[in-house]
């Protein structure tokens, strides 16, 4: 233990004196998490994870527009109404096509009156004769931002369609209500012989309720999804795995100088020396995560982003960070032993980390990848770490859910260290 501490102390001293290297190690993940999260704010708008802005130009100015606004006024849709005195249809189209709004809707002049007339016509005597022929419909222009995802576009379209159908249904029931009351009066029946009173409310009463239920999967209450809960651990992981490259550099520097021969002549195993490096660089990784976490918690709210939170299960988060750090150090030590030059190690290391991050879901979520790539993704250590983080921080799962990912990270560390040690012995 004394020798591991000695080796760790020496590494710490060397790191402390390499201020430029240290700055890069901490600056890189910090910058990445800020930039990527800010960039993804826009992605969230395009995927509907943020409030969608609907631009409404009500050229009618009647009951239809008011009713439509009431029905669309949910927590996910923000309606921006343009004044018909100053704006035209083409302005709406241009604003939406330019990405300023996700959807634009134009209510043509006289729409409220038209829809009334069309509904009245439906209940006119003898209208069945025209069955099969096209009936009058009210046409409205709707525009979508070409940049939004197809899923969001379909969802918005369905929501608009439902709101308009709801208005139409209300109008139909109102007229039907009147007609039935007239028939009852005409036949001389008592007013309560048919349940026509409040017919509109009765028919509009929803009979189904969709309740979101996570079941009994060990999930606790988790905060609503936001990119910060995913980006902070994802880019911290990315930075942590990059720590493996300077670690490989330290080993290669020793191997290329007389130090390696001197170390080999000491009465201690290389495993001890490796563990000394691991202790120091795990410390670096923990500090990296802490820094990125603090940025997420305290800086993000100041730049208009949601705050990062680990309050759900800090113990599990620490365990993931620790095992990811160990995996990163194992990777670095193996890289340092497998490569012959620092150029080789840095090229191979950067490529491996970026590829592993891409595969692991740091850049694009795994579920958005092609099927084959989703299967390959499970080979990425960054995927194991990120999946565990998402399970804990986004899904609110308990520690028992992430044991397999933690096990993979631990196994990766043990395997890479043993391989590196094997290489030390093979090189003799």
């Amino acid at each position, binding site marked *: 233990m*004394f*020798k591991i501490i*000695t*080796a760790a*102390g*020496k590494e710490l*001293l*060397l790191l402390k*004196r*390499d201020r430029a290297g240290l700055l890069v190690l901490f600056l890189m993940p910090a910058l990445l998490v800020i930039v990527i999260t800010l960039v993804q704010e826009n992605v969230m708008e395009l995927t509907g994870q943020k409030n969608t802005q609907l631009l409404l130009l009500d050229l009618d100015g009647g009951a239809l527009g008011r009713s439509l606004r009431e029905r669309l006024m949910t927590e996910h849709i923000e309606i921006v109404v343009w004044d018909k005195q100053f704006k035209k249809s083409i302005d709406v189209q241009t604003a939406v096509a330019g990405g300023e709004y996700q959807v634009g809707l134009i209510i043509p002049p006289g729409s409220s009156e038209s829809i009334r007339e069309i509904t009245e016509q439906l209940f006119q005597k003898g209208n069945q004769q025209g069955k099969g022929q096209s009936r009058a419909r009210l046409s409205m222009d709707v525009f979508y931002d070409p940049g939004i995802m197809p899923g969001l576009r379909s969802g918005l379209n369905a929501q608009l369609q439902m709101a308009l159908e709801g208005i139409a249904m209300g109008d139909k029931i109102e007229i039907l209500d009147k007609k039935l009351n007239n028939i009852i009066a005409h036949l001389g029946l008592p007013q309560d012989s048919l349940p026509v009173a409040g017919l509109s409310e009765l028919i509009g009463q929803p009979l189904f309720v969709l309740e979101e239920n996570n079941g009994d999967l060990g999930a606790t209450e988790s905060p609503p999804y936001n990119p910060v809960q995913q980006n902070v651990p994802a880019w911290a992981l990315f930075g942590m795995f990059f720590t493996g490259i300077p670690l490989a550099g330290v080993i290669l520097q020793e191997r290329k*100088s*007389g*130090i390696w*021969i*001197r170390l*080999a*002549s*000491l*009465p*201690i195993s290389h495993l001890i020396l490796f563990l000394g490096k691991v202790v120091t660089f795990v410390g670096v990784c923990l500090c990296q995560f802490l820094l990125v976490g603090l940025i997420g918690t305290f800086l993000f709210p100041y730049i208009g982003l949601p705050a990062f939170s680990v309050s759900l299960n800090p113990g599990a988060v620490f365990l993931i960070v620790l095992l990811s750090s160990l995996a990163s150090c194992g990777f670095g030590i193996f890289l340092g032993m497998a490569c012959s030059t620092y150029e080789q190690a840095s090229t191979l290391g950067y490529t491996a980390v970026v590829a592993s991050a891409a595969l692991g879901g740091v850049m694009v979520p795994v579920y958005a990848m092609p099927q084959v790539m989703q299967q390959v993704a499970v080979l990425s250590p960054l995927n194991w770490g990120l999946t565990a983080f998402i399970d804990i921080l986004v899904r609110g799962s308990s520690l028992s859910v992430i044991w397999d990912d933690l096990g993979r990270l631990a196994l990766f560390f043990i395997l890479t260290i043993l391989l590196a040690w094997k290489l030390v012995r093979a090189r*003799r």
Partner: protein
Amino acid sequence: MKACNTLVQPQKQDDALVATSLVMRYRNSAVPALNDFSLQVGKGEFFGLLGANGAGKTTAVSVFSGFLSPDSGSVSVMGMDFGRSVNTIRQILGLVPQDIALYDQLTAQENLLFFGRLYGFSGKKLQDRVDQCLDFARLTEQATRRVYTYSGGMKRRLNLATGLIHLPQILFLDEPTVGIDTQSRHLIHKQLKDLNQKGTTILYTTHYMEEAQELCSRIGIIDAGKIIEQGTPDGLLAQSGCRNLENLFLHLTGKQLRDT
């Protein structure tokens, strides 16, 4: 070239190093770096291993210190072999590699403390050894300066002192005076002679003939991975009729360039 009898006597109690029929071939190399290499160095001896570049000196030292394993043959240090007593051998063996084996960003004191601790020293004993090594290298005044600020001679002296931090019984020095000024070389020679007189066995590789003649009680000439001649400097000169070791060396190894 003169052939040499490389037969080694059975190991005696007073042998510090015995290498028997070592063969060592690097991957992708057509010729072996050590080829039936045998050597016996007695306790307290100052043995010089002389050879041209690529003759196999560094490979031999690497095998003697357990850094490389030979393809065949055996090595014993103070009567012990690496297979059974590796840690005991490493505790009594000192190695000064040809390349500077120091951390540039650490000070001389920090380098010595680090290697001293890895040898198991601590507390006052460690501090005493560090002070003695700094004094040995005449670097006490510069002990807190980082190594990268040192001159070549200072680095060489510290490199040597670091190999002595654990008071080894046998010391392998691989060309320890390459590329340094006369003053530093002179100091290193003086300190090594003192060390040898106090009982440390020294195996010293060099291609400086005058250095070998000045320091060594016995020398071995290595060529193409094999000892081709060994004996005391005076004895070899008398036996060959050569005026100095350089002539003897050229006589034995030839004048052909040894580009490997």
